[in-house]
Structures are given as structure tokens and as C-alpha cells.
């Protein structure tokens, strides 16, 4: 493996000089359509690419190292920033990891509240993912409509926990704020408004012939390739692999809800192409609406936090806990040395990192306009890649 890396470094050095008949174009860190600061070095022959080499690290903030200097409970706000579009999932995964390590039990109402917040966050994240995919293809209007719907979700979470983007909602042992009945009513009213809006979005863009032809049959990823590269989340399910952590490794109270796992089945082209990934995300939003309705009805009374000490010192050990974030499996590997109140090591596994790794192999023979579609359809966000 080390020899492979060295070989790539040599290749990169050679890439710096232009080759006869090829163009070296830099799709730089500042670009309207790479989601965040990602850099791609494209070797193209006009419009058709030969290679696309990704360069990452522009958004590296050393969060995993910061974890070694922050107490367990104090690290929760940092987990928001790993993927600010799916902050609730990151919160929940970290809380689950530390609770497993220390042996705390979360009250039932807190579990339901975590599910409600996580599904709202899933809808919000998919709104951004599908909207920015539409925007990259050229239709600006659906993106702005989705940002408006996200504003409703932001207002709901603002009333719930005080913040619109970096929620810091989960605590070790429960959640931080309770859900008043008026807010539950508001969520239900919003769901009544939102589900027809998804239908309208479908009429506007999902079934639009131009949009379909832009995305169908573009970079179909087979199920074998998807599992080989370690793709997770909607990317994996769009290739036909039936794997969802909420059903296959149930955590929290997901086993009490009735929802479908959306699989890509070649809606307008090959199985696992970009259009499948798009439609899977839109359909997952509808499934999240279903889960939300069930959770709001079944919400039990009770406490929202169990008694945990002010300074948490878990016993010696290591654990891994993962949730099904909107971008796939978001997992925390926490190592504790039993003595200090700060973790010894926290390793974060994100879905966008593996999605980034497949882009280079997909990019042979593909046009630059399609590269933009691929990055959008794989839903790569820079903070998850670089942490």
C-alpha cells in the first residue's frame, strides 16, 4: 500500500507538466459548484476528462486532536461542526459512543426526541443535497425553494434548542431541551405543508426531461463497486445494496417505527446512476416525514436527561458507535484511558470521505459538466471530508 501511495506522488509530479494533446485544468478550491473547498486537478482532452485527481485538506481543522484536550461533555459542540448539515446525527453518534463506554442509560422520551430531531435534520440535509444538485445542473429555483423550506425547519429547531444550524442538542445521557406541545403541533402543520411541496418539486424538476437526461446513465456505480469502495448511505442504497443502519443495526428507538428503505432501481436509466441517487434522496425525505409523524404521536412523557456526573470519567476501554446520518454512516471510535476526564482518542468516520475516494475512478471518459453532476449526486461536503 505504501508503494501505491509513492507511485501516486510520482504521478502527481508528472501531472504538473502539460502533456501533448491534454489540458491541465484546476477546478480550484474556490469554485461555485464544488461543495465547499475541494480541489480537483483535471486532465482533460477538451471537454472529456482523462483523470480527475482530488486534493483535500483545505478545511482541516484538527477536530480529532481537539477532542484530546476537551472534556467528554464539552466536546459536544465540536461534533456539530463535523458536518454542519447533519449536526444532529453527529451529536447523537458521539453521545451514544460515550454512553456505551460509561454505561449510562438514556430515558425513553429523550430517545424519541433524538429521533425527531435527527429526522428533521435528515430532511434539512437532503433539502440542501437535492437543491444544490439541481443548482449545479442549472435550475436555480428549486434550490431557493428548498432553502425556504429549510428556514421553516430552522425556525422549529430554534424554538426547540436555540440554534439553527449547530444544534448542540444531545447531551451525554439525554437531550438538552424539551419539546413543548405547541411546537409539536407546529411540526405537524409544517409536515402537512411540506409533503405537497415535495410533489411540486417533483413536478418542477424531478420529472423534467432535461434534468433526467442530464443525470440518467451518468456514472452508474455497480453494487460491487459501491461496497468495494466503502460507500454508505443514500449512495450505497442507490446502487441497489439494501443496507441501512436504522434497520440492520437498530439504535435508539428506530425499531419501533414503520418505514421503508428506499433503494435505487434504475428509475430512468441504469441502477446506481446519478438520477437514482437524486431520487433516493427525495424519496428518503418522504420516509422521514412518515417517521416524524409516528414519533410525534408516540412521544412518551418522562425525563429528558438521566443523572450523570458533572465530570464524566468513563472506565478504560474503547467503543465504536455509528448512526445513519444523511450522508451515510457517521461513526465515532472513542478510546478512554480510565484516568483522565478527556478522551484519549476520538476517531470520526464519515460518509463523504469514502464518496470522495470513488470520484477519481469514475472520472474516466466523462465530461466536465458531468463531473459537477457526480460530485453533487454523491453529496460530498468538505467539512466531512477534512474534519
Amino acid at each position: 500500500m505504501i508503494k501505491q501511495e509513492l507511485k501516486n506522488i510520482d504521478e502527481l509530479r508528472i501531472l504538473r507538466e502539460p502533456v501533448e494533446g491534454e489540458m491541465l485544468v484546476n477546478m480550484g478550491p474556490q469554485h461555485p459548484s464544488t461543495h465547499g473547498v475541494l480541489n480537483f486537478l483535471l486532465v482533460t482532452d477538451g471537454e472529456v476528462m482523462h483523470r480527475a485527481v482530488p486534493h483535500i485538506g483545505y478545511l482541516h481543522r484538527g477536530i480529532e486532536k481537539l477532542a484530546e484536550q476537551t472534556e467528554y461533555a464539552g466536546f459536544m459542540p465540536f461534533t456539530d461542526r463535523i458536518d454542519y448539515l447533519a449536526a444532529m446525527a453527529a451529536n447523537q453518534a458521539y453521545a451514544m459512543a460515550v454512553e456505551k463506554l460509561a454505561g449510562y442509560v438514556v430515558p425513553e422520551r429523550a430517545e424519541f426526541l433524538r429521533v425527531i430531531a435527527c429526522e428533521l435534520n435528515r430532511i434539512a440535509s437532503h433539502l440542501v443535497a437535492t437543491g444544490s444538485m439541481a443548482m449545479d445542473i442549472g435550475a436555480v429555483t428549486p434550490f431557493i425553494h428548498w432553502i425556504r423550506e429549510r428556514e421553516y425547519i430552522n425556525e422549529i429547531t430554534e424554538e426547540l434548542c436555540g440554534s439553527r444550524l449547530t444544534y448542540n442538542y444531545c447531551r451525554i445521557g439525554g437531550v438538552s431541551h424539551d419539546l413543548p406541545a405547541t411546537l409539536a403541533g407546529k411540526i405537524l402543520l409544517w409536515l402537512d405543508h411540506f409533503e405537497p411541496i415535495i410533489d411540486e418539486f417533483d413536478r418542477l424538476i424531478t420529472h423534467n426531461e432535461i434534468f433526467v437526461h442530464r443525470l440518467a446513465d451518468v456514472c452508474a456505480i455497480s453494487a460491487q463497486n459501491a461496497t468495494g469502495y466503502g460507500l454508505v448511505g443514500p449512495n450505497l442504497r442507490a446502487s441497489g445494496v439494501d443496507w441501512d443502519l436504522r434497520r440492520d443495526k437498530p439504535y435508539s428507538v428506530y425499531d419501533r417505527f414503520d418505514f421503508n428503505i428506499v433503494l435505487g432501481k434504475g428509475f430512468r436509466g441504469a441502477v446506481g446512476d446519478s438520477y437514482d441517487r437524486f431520487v433516493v434522496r427525495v424519496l428518503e425525505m418522504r420516509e422521514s416525514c412518515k417517521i416524524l409523524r409516528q414519533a410525534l404521536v408516540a412521544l412518551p412523557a418522562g425525563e429528558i436527561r438521566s443523572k450523570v456526573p458533572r465530570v464524566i470519567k468513563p472506565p478504560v476501554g474503547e467503543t465504536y458507535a455509528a448512526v445513519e446520518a444523511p450522508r451515510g454512516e457517521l461513526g465515532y471510535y472513542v478510546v478512554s484511558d480510565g484516568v483522565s476526564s478527556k478522551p484519549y482518542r476520538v476517531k470520526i468516520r464519515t460518509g463523504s470521505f469514502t464518496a470522495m475516494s470513488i470520484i477519481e475512478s469514475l472520472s474516466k471518459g466523462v465530461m466536465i459538466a458531468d463531473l459537477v453532476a457526480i460530485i453533487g449526486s454523491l453529496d460530498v461536503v468538505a467539512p466531512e471530508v477534512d474534519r
Partner: protein
Amino acid sequence: MSVLEGMAVTFSWLFRRPYTVQWPDKIPEPLEKTLPATYRGLLEVDTRICTACLACEKACPIEVIAIEVDRNSETKERHIVRFDVDAAKCMYCGLCVEQCPTDAIHHTTLFAATTPDIGDLVLTFIKPGERALPFKPKDAPPAAIERGAITQALLDSRRGVE
């Protein structure tokens, strides 16, 4: 045809109410009053009810709060000499507010914190030279003031606004 359907959707939006809130001049009341009470805006400390337990200082993951308590060795009296909150570094996570037993430190609904110099954003709730007695449970609770008034007054004085 799907194009015609898309055009119909777009045209129907021309007749719908826009979502824009035209802040700050074309709204009926200031935005700070319409935000929910749980909103995590700028921090505010009511030093009259602070018990100087230092729980907020320990809870903050990035050491934004700086409190100095001076203990007179003869009279065994404690005075709070300094209570600084660096509003520029604060990430508004709310961990300090959760730990406070008397709700002395709390979030306000203020969000506009522009000052001419970044040093002005360090909110000094105990002015240099003053001392405050920590609150004791047997004391009578002081008169309630409007949430956000202390921080707003601090920021206004920094901006030179009366």
C-alpha cells in the same frame, strides 16, 4: 409535457407571498422580540445573582469565560473582581448556561454585536475597579430587569451610542 408543467409551477409562485423578512426597517417589531426565549444569542451575566461557583468557567470547552474571585484572608469574604465573556470567541453552545444554579449567566435574544474594535467584544460584566458580592441563597432576590438590557447597554457604550 414536463417543461410546461415546470413553467406552470414557476408561474404560480409569482402569485404567492414571498418569504422575505425585510430587516431591519420594514418589519413591525424588532426581530429580537420575535425570537423564541430559548434562542442562544449573546451571553449576559446578572452579577447581582451570581454565586461565584465557577461552574460556567469550568463547563466552557474553549475557555471563553474568565472569572476572578478575590478572597480576603481575614474576613473570609469573597468578592468577584472580574467576570469577562469573550463574545467573539464564544460558540454559543449553551454549556455554561446549563450549569448555572441561579440563571445568572443566560442567553439573550441579541445577535447584532458589531463594535469598532474586536477587543470591544470582550464583555466585562464587572467593570475594572468594581467588586461584587456573590449571591447567597438567604439573600432577597434583586429586582428583575429585562433580559438583554445589560449586554445591550455594554455594547452601546462600546459603540459610543447613548
